[in-house]
């Protein structure tokens, strides 16, 4: 009894009072990027030294935990001065609509748009709401990108050589022929983290853009083109073709991205589909890995491949923050050349600031080369309803495991689409 009472008393004394809120010339930043936390802390230290403004960098990981915290803090109206939104454009719009995010356009436009011009256009587009957007958000730029990203294919140089393949494939037919050659020498063709829905979605979206073009994809989202149409069936058949023996790594549909990265790093597959961050991962797992970057091989050679890319991570400024000016000033400093170079070198990320691009490793530079060919759901004028996307992605998985045919999946997805459209009305 005595012991328990003493412990309880001790606890009460220990945690009795909360800490007072931070003083005014401290700004608070919440983020989720475990890999970049040390670099951000270091930058905050430098900033404090230069300007006397203290930036409190707080990390909440993994990202679902971070998202929960942002959601809860929004409801309690205690969002920090600077934070990031890890969600669809629609949710971003909701944040703006409810006054949680400041319009940064005036700051970007200042001095003839000097700040705006320092970024990759694609990176800013992610944070831009253009005139007449479907979310009815006043046009403007609402976030600051700190890096850019894109997702491409990678090939293992040694394995390709082993199968007598001189150069990476450019067309899908070449790709399938190469994979067959690899299969003959006992090498698995392709690996990717298709146990994560967004990676399946991204791969399908690349081919949808290649096969039917952006306009028709958008028409599908608006409900004007059916998923049972010939173009979409062609997209679904890509997965059916790839489900042939020896093409896909065994168990690809339940592989997490990390698993897939490990398989490629250990030379267990000749091709991979992954984002630029893999450079860092492969580097750590197998420094001797000889690999190159390539665009996903096209099916329709009349249209260039479009891949997903744009801003990797962005920060927004809290509209209710009393330190708005200081927060913007910090973000301006963070995205200046010197800090961007530091960030990209410390964490092997592609900088959002073009000027900082000069001193990055060659493989990473290859990734950066095709930034002009990127697109992303966050910059499309229309977006698919998440329920339809879920049905499509799950359907693609069942095509890969040979459970359903493209026709069946197309019908199921279309049924969900019809239901969602009916509900909207």
């Amino acid at each position, binding site marked *: 009894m005595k012991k328990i009472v003493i412990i309880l008393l001790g606890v009460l004394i220990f945690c009795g009072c909360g800490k007072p809120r931070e003083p005014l010339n401290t700004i608070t930043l919440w983020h989720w990027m475990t890999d970049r936390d040390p670099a951000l802390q270091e930058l905050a230290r430098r900033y404090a030294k230069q300007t006397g403004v203290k930036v409190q960098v707080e990390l909440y990981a993994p990202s679902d935990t971070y998202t929960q915290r942002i959601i809860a803090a929004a409801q309690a109206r205690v969002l920090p001065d600077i934070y990031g939104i890890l969600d669809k454009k629609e949710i971003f719009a909701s944040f703006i609509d409810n006054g949680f995010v400041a319009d940064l356009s005036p700051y970007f436009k200042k001095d003839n748009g000097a700040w705006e011009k320092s970024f990759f256009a694609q990176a800013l587009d992610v944070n831009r709401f253009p005139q007449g957007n479907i979310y009815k958000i006043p046009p403007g730029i609402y976030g600051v990108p700190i890096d850019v990203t894109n997702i491409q294919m990678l090939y293992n140089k040694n394995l390709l050589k082993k199968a007598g393949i001189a150069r990476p494939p450019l067309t899908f037919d070449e790709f399938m022929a190469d994979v067959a050659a690899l299969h003959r020498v006992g090498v698995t063709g392709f690996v990717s983290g298709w*146990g994560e829905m967004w990676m399946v979605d991204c791969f399908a979206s690349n081919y949808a853009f290649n096969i039917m073009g952006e306009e028709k994809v958008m028409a599908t989202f608006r409900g004007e083109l059916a998923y049972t149409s010939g173009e979409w069936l062609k997209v679904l058949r890509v997965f059916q073709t790839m489900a042939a023996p020896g093409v896909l790594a*065994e168990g690809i549909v339940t592989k997490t991205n990390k698993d897939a990265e490990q398989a490629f790093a250990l030379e267990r597959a000749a091709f991979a589909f992954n984002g630029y961050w893999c450079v860092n991962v492969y580097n750590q797992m197998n420094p001797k890995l000889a690999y190159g970057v390539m665009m996903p091989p096209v099916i329709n050679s009349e249209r260039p491949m479009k891949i997903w890319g744009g801003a990797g991570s962005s920060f927004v400024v809290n509209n209710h923050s009393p330190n708005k000016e200081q927060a913007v000033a910090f973000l301006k400093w963070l995205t200046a050349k010197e800090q961007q170079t530091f960030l990209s070198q410390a964490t092997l990320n592609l900088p959002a600031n073009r000027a900082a691009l000069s001193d990055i490793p060659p493989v990473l530079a290859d990734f950066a080369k095709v930034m002009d060919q990127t697109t992303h759901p966050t910059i499309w004028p229309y977006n698919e309803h998440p*329920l339809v996307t879920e049905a499509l992605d799950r359907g693609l998985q069942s095509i890969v495991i040979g459970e359903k045919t493209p026709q069946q999946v197309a019908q199921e997805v279309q049924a969900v689409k019809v239901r969602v459209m009916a509900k909207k009305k």
Partner: protein
Amino acid sequence: MKAKIGAFPYSSGMEALRCYAFIIPAVVIFGIFYIYPFFEIFNLSLRDWNGIDLHKTYVGFDNFRELFHDRIWGQSLLNAGFITFIALTLQNMLALALALACDRDIRAKNFYRVVFFIPPILSEVVVGFIWRWILNAGSQNGEYYGLLNYALSKLGFQNLAHNWLSNPDSALICIALVHSWKGFGWGFLMLLAGLQTVDKQLYEAARVDGAGSWSAFKNITLPLMMPVIWVVMILTVLGSMQVFVLILSMVGQGLVYHTEVPVTRILSAMTGTNRFGYACAMGVTFGAILVGVSVAFRALAGKMKPA
């Protein structure tokens, strides 16, 4: 129920108040941290809300109506039911067998006691990690990467080598088995604690009466252990129906809908498709189902009690 003989009778209001003092700390904490959020969640389940908007549109029971027609939700319940069934039978039987074995005077029982509790201690992430490696399906030139397929091929059962986690026929079974493996330590521990309170003299008496070990088990151990077994079963049901971290760490976001369970559905409705109201409706429905199952179990356990 005989225990009530020894209870304090309450005669006055003052007496009752003294009794309440025992439960007040629990009730206060519980009221603030559970009951209040509970009503909030119920309130949210009647709304159309994306998680961000300050205004939450009231839609009545629309979410529940939609849920009723949601086939994937139905499948997720069935999947969880399957995992629970395996856990109830296999896992609890194993736990009981091991607890009985360790309750005797056998050599190294302390060793077993410690070792059986290792799986529950390890985090789901580690467990998923290890089992993913064991069940890995990949191979190169006939050499399997995964431990299980490798062992099968070395033992001459190549044709049994299998795509364990990406095959709709085996994925859920693998998950259920790993879940049972991870969880049996709990049942073992609680049953062992229960067995300790069974008077050993009763066994002696039974032996003198010429009862075999099976009849001693059936007539002495089982009836006395029924309350503990009931608790273990309820906790198994609750734990297995709500399993999800293990699934995420074994098959990522899942194999089509074959590994979907209610909690993964709730999570994907919450942060995947941003339908918070719907997710809360799922939670409330799921809770009602769990309560129903538990009440049924209680009734069953009551029936099985010797008169």
